């Protein structure tokens, strides 16, 4: 069992991800904006994070950069509707472990998260 942070300003994403990840036996912390995601990563022992790229307060990549500055590292999945190669490349350069485009196949995303946690 892992502790996973889910950060997205869209409530449906949080509801479904929390439901799927809890069903897979994980503990889930969910927040609705960038600064709250940064705080959660800072103060809770997180094993993996799923961040929306466009969030109020801070972008997903900005949250990753802020964690890196604090020396905090765990795999981060970026979730976004932006379908643009530059953004994908930038996300990986910023340290994202994976990049998931919306619309999302929840079963696939959960499988990817579980796979990543197995090799952590």
């Amino acid at each position, binding site marked *: 069992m892992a502790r996973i942070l889910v950060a997205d300003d*869209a*409530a*449906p*994403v949080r*509801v*479904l991800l929390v*439901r*799927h990840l809890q*069903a897979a036996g994980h503990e889930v912390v969910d927040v609705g904006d960038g600064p709250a995601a940064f705080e959660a990563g800072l103060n809770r022992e997180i094993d993996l994070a799923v961040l929306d790229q466009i969030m109020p307060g801070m972008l997903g990549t900005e949250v990753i950069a802020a964690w890196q500055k604090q020396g905090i590292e765990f795999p981060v999945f970026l979730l976004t*509707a932006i379908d643009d190669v530059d953004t994908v490349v930038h996300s990986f350069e910023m340290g994202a472990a994976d990049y998931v485009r*919306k*619309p*999302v*196949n*929840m*079963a*696939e995303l959960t499988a990817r998260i579980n796979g990543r946690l197995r090799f952590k």
Partner: protein
Amino acid sequence: MDELLPVITLLMATATLIAGLTLVAVKLAHRIILVGRGVRSAIYIAALGEMIATKLLPSHMPRQWARDRLFHQAIIDYRRLLSGDDGEFVDELIKRSKVLPSLRRRIQPPWLNAIRLRAIGSYVALASQQEIPYLRSLLTDRNEFVRFHAAHGLGRLGDVASVPLILDLCVRVRAWEVAKLADSLPLFGREAVYPICRWIDLAWQSPNSTEQAVAEAARTLGLIGDLDAEMTLLELLESDRREWRIAAASALGRIGSDSSRFALLRALRDESWEVRARSVRALAYLADGSVAPIVSGLLSDSQWWVRQNAAETLGELPGGVVELTKALESEDHFAADAARNQLAELRLLPAGVSPRLSVETQ
């Protein structure tokens, strides 16, 4: 008068008190409404999330859900979020909730425009292939915004058969509506190239076709950027209508084939400066450095905009900066100024060369 003073003061105090209490009541009511909406929205999101996660379809859904725009928004959000099995399950939920028939009733004319537009917006976001005939019928609605939504919905559903209908509509409506309707055409994707080209061929022969409708169709071909559109665009670039040539020039730049390049180079000698300006700008898309010396010739064009576009294109083409630097020595002050301006913009002005323009600032 002194006797009336206390009465007036009392009346004023009472009026102020009533006004204040009314304001507080209105604010309170507004807050209650907002909280109520938030709660309803959260209930819908949670209920739908539970159904999707467990893949359990309810035997029936409360009828009022289908009429509530917060429910519409919640189900739209889930539809946009999910693909695969989950997406198909959301489609089933849309059917089961009977939300589409409810929205269709609100799109009908007796309702106020604000309600109709909200309903068509949700309808388009939730529609599936079965809704195509109804959306097509809305292309002739009396409200132009309903027509725009219908065109976008058909584009989202990829109903290529609607492309000629939308273009025919462009011939009959006002100029600003043509641009709004044309915005929907790229949504149809590459499948729309053939019907658009076919429509342009027919429009060419029709006395009723408006210049703008054909020009918008040509621009759409450029946005889609498919090589199959090349022949039609090349013909438009040779037409006697300036608007068509301008649109074709921009579009050919995005197509980017050898034939496009030759046609654009020919169009640099067009009698219309707008066509020359668009053609020289379109050459930048091709990123072919071999055209830089020819583009450099346009730095001496009689029109400022053409010179400016030529300089911008040279700034982007491989080897273009060399041509710009050479043009600094030109005896044509207009050409030298255009080059100087662009090099200054790119921060590549050679040391010792003044960024001040010699002609155009005077």
